[in-house]
């Protein structure tokens, strides 16, 4: 892949259906969403159409604080796909609300990432306008 082709490319977009489109619409509006069962109030992520605790099909979206800690991480260096910048730090974040999500850690040297560090969500806008929740080490 030539360098300019890499620079022009954009990340793979999530295919959308009624189970996940709302989450990306919230991201586009600058918010990190969590699905909450309307019947038993259990939070769940990734989103699913039915509550695995009480089988309710009713749910609503709540906005997360964006605060969490690093549960695990990996640093991807190869192969390098167009639309992504490497080294690419992928984090699993335990949100303070209690759910966990997979995201990217930005503005961080791979040598500085570690387990249990506090992180804060922010919305990143790609050059093509696509928005997605990413994380930074807290206080940066």
């Amino acid at each position: 892949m030539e360098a300019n082709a890499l620079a022009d490319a954009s990340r793979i977009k999530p295919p959308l259906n009624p189970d996940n489109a709302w989450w990306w619409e919230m991201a586009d509006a600058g918010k990190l969403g969590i699905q909450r069962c309307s019947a038993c109030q259990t939070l769940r992520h990734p989103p699913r159409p039915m509550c695995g605790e009480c089988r309710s099909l009713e749910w609503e979206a709540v906005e997360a604080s964006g605060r969490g800690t690093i549960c695990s991480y990996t640093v991807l260096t190869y192969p390098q796909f167009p639309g992504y910048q490497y080294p690419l730090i992928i984090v699993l974040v335990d949100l303070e609300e209690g759910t966990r999500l997979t995201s990217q850690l930005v503005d961080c040297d791979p040598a500085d990432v570690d387990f249990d560090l506090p992180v804060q969500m922010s919305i990143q806008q790609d050059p093509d306008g696509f928005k997605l929740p990413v994380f930074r080490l807290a206080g940066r």
Partner: protein
Amino acid sequence: MPVSLKDEAAIAGIGVTEFSKASGVSELNLAAQCVTAACEDAGIAPSELDGFVSYTLDSSDEIEVARAVGAGDLTFFSKINYGGGAAVGTIAQAAMAVATGQAKNVVCYRAMNGRSGKRMGQGVSGDIVTSDLVHWSWYMTYGMLIPGSWIAMIAHKYMHRYGVTREDLGRVAISQRNYALNNPRAAGYGKPLDMQTYLARDPIAYPLCLYDFCQETDGGCAILVTSSERARDLRTRPAVIRAVTQASSRGQEQMTSYYRDQMDTLPEMELAASRVYAMSGLGPDAIDAACLYDAFTSEIIMQLESFGFCGAGEGKELVRDGALDIDGRLPNNTHGGLLSEGYIHGMNNIAEAVRLVRGESVNQPPKSVEHVLVSSGVGVPTGAMILGAA
């Protein structure tokens, strides 16, 4: 009607093609080759095959292979989902079919141009928005596009929790490479690996480096299952299926079961373990050797714990003690495994387990091998099997 599959069916034949990086033939060609080789091994004519089982990822449908090899009437055909998680599941299907009279001679096969054709490690894409595609979207949008990236997240958490080092992963890679040195079919044949070389590689998906990843392979492998009674009268010494099961557990995702309370265990593999031990009436102490699924080195260490060969966090100690080596407690993947023989999606690990039970491995351990444990893919809906000497 049996109420348990214990000892009902046996593996009467195994067949493999050459393993390479560029087969130069179609996947159906490879399938036909390995299926007929399994028939030849068993002394069963291909025209006697009445059941075919494969993986949903296999491009050669059951009837395509049946026509190619000249099979006649089929009364059982099925495919199992979840990539390498299907491996032992195909045998479970065949054993159930044989035990219930749905078919007499069932062949399980996996044939793939895994290097020259569609490469398994090339990530995910698709046009129809299925629930499976929505699942992958949570990862591909962020750049997690290859199996190594998905498994690294769990491997790293496990290693952090229990102090497992890259040297420990290297010990697994080197143990299996040492076996491959004696196996002319293996990708690692004639290519020794030492710790210095292992540690010198930069990570691909930290903490995993090239040598922690399995091969990419063109090849086919087939396993012929029939009743234990019939298998006794056939050409080769049968490997009796003492127990076999599929297993998936709460919160299961394909490769990315990140949202359970604990990420440093393999609950579906623990389920498989409890099932095969209960069905066979055996425990870990009775297992003499193993072919544990090894798409990545870390999976071996975690499975030693899942199957009760040691306690939680103690897998690394077993590996440091040389347990996986030919004179160790649990000689493992004595053909080189997916890491160093080839990646036929776990089917080639089943073939090696049969050789171990027959006493025919190129690396046959010096001790008596009565029972061999085999597992399917790690991090996906999976399964396990115990084979026993007849």
